[in-house]
């Protein structure tokens, strides 16, 4: 198969980028999208060109490292897969394929198609964890978890943090990502303890990092490679409002006493 690629090239975070056109030929329909890009890079290397930088790691669809905004969709045209699981048979021979980096103020471009997604890590650091004391391992099943809650928590926990939700969102909002993280932990008894603090801290961190607001267009759900539901965003909104309106205040003992 032959393709015309329009790829965003940018030297570094401050440089001005542009779309550059490349032709690739003799691509197998069964090769993955990255194998196709590898073929292009091999050609660029042998002709003294500058290979295209892109993020990838496990190439199994589970690590959340790969990105790419392909023909107006994060992770390309196939639903429920990451870019590394996308194959060239999803395209037609002779197609022009636009490949762009995730675009968001909170995701600065490192080089070409590689963006810095550490903003998502910062949000996790703000509250996406449970505090566990060291000591002996507790017996299994000592804390009862209702089946429905564990199902929903597991569904939310499938988020691989790739940032496709931010890329797809017309407002570059990270609400689906945070909704998934908040839901995953708030649904389980281990996460309930810090739930009120967590949701407030994570939302505050998200706002500070310059992500947009949710306008409920649901592009995030449609393009999430793990099919995370926007019901998680509603759950986060409930958690947030509940925390703001009803959470207990910490008692501070005055120094003088």
């Amino acid at each position, binding site marked *: 198969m032959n393709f015309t690629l*329009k790829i*965003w090239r940018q030297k570094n975070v401050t440089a001005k980028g542009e*779309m550059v056109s490349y032709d690739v030929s003799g691509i197998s329909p069964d090769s993955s999208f990255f194998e196709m890009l590898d073929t292009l890079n091999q050609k660029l290397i042998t002709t003294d060109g500058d290979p295209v930088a892109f993020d990838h790691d496990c190439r199994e669809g589970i690590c959340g490292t790969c990105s790419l*905004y392909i*023909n*107006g*969709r994060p992770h390309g045209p196939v639903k429920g897969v990451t870019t590394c699981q996308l194959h060239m048979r999803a395209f037609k021979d002779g197609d022009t394929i*636009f490949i*762009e980096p995730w*675009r*968001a*103020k*909170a995701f600065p471009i490192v080089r070409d198609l590689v963006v810095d997604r550490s903003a998502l890590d910062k949000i996790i650091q703000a509250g996406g964890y449970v505090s566990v004391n060291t000591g002996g391992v507790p017996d299994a099943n000592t804390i009862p978890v209702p089946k429905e809650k564990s199902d929903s928590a597991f569904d939310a926990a499938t988020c691989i943090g790739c940032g496709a939700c931010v890329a*797809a969102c*017309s*407002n*570059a*909002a990270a609400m689906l990502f945070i909704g998934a993280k908040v839901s995953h932990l708030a649904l389980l008894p281990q996460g309930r303890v810090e739930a009120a603090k967590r949701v407030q801290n994570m*939302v*505050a961190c*998200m*706002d500070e990092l*310059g*992500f*947009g*607001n*949710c*306008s*409920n*267009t*649901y*592009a995030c759900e*449609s*393009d999430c490679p793990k099919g995370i539901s*926007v*019901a998680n*965003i*509603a*759950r*986060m*909104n*409930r958690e*947030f*409002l509940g925390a*703001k309106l009803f959470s207990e205040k910490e008692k501070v003992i005055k120094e003088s006493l």
Partner: protein
Amino acid sequence: MLLYSSITKKVLMALAGLFLVTFLCVHLGINLMLLKNDGGRAFSEAATFMGTNPVIKVAEIVLFAGFLLHIAFGLIVSGQNRSARPIAYARSNSSDTSFFSKYMFHTGIIVFIFLALHFCDFYFIKIGLVAPPPGIAVHDFYSRTLLLFSTPWYSLFYIVSFIVLGIHLNHAIQSAFQTLGWNHSKYTDAVKVIGSVYSVAIAAGFSIVPIYVLFFLN
């Protein structure tokens, strides 16, 4: 207002929006009295009631506050959304989303322009800020309405405005529920259907009056 978190802003906007949605229903009820073939008696009585009842007077202040809150937060939130993606994609988004949901700001602006004009045509006359057109008494909303709707371009603008409002509401109602956290497999589909039906009913209901005046009254 700027310091509120993104979710707080959205929740206040949603609450104000839902309040405005219920107000539309009341307004439509009064407008439909124009269809009654009694020379505008029922309509004028309703208009007088709305203009003089002390409870309505208080509700009117709440209503204006609702409008201001919804518009102010709409502008702030939209501004932030725009700045969250400084460089646009070369290939615009082709995700499967409801088409109209991306144009809430644009439809909102059109509705706002209509609202401004509507204020000039009715409310400002009522409070004495603007003089009524010659031959029409300050509180004669019936004659004022008939005069406006007998102008085809005004009726057309009015109908287009309400179609745009219908588009705005079609996304707005289910969106408000989602923002307030009311999303559940039990009722979310019903909310979407009811929201769509309501938006069509509002657009159609308000549009009936100018069509009636233009084609059936003369």
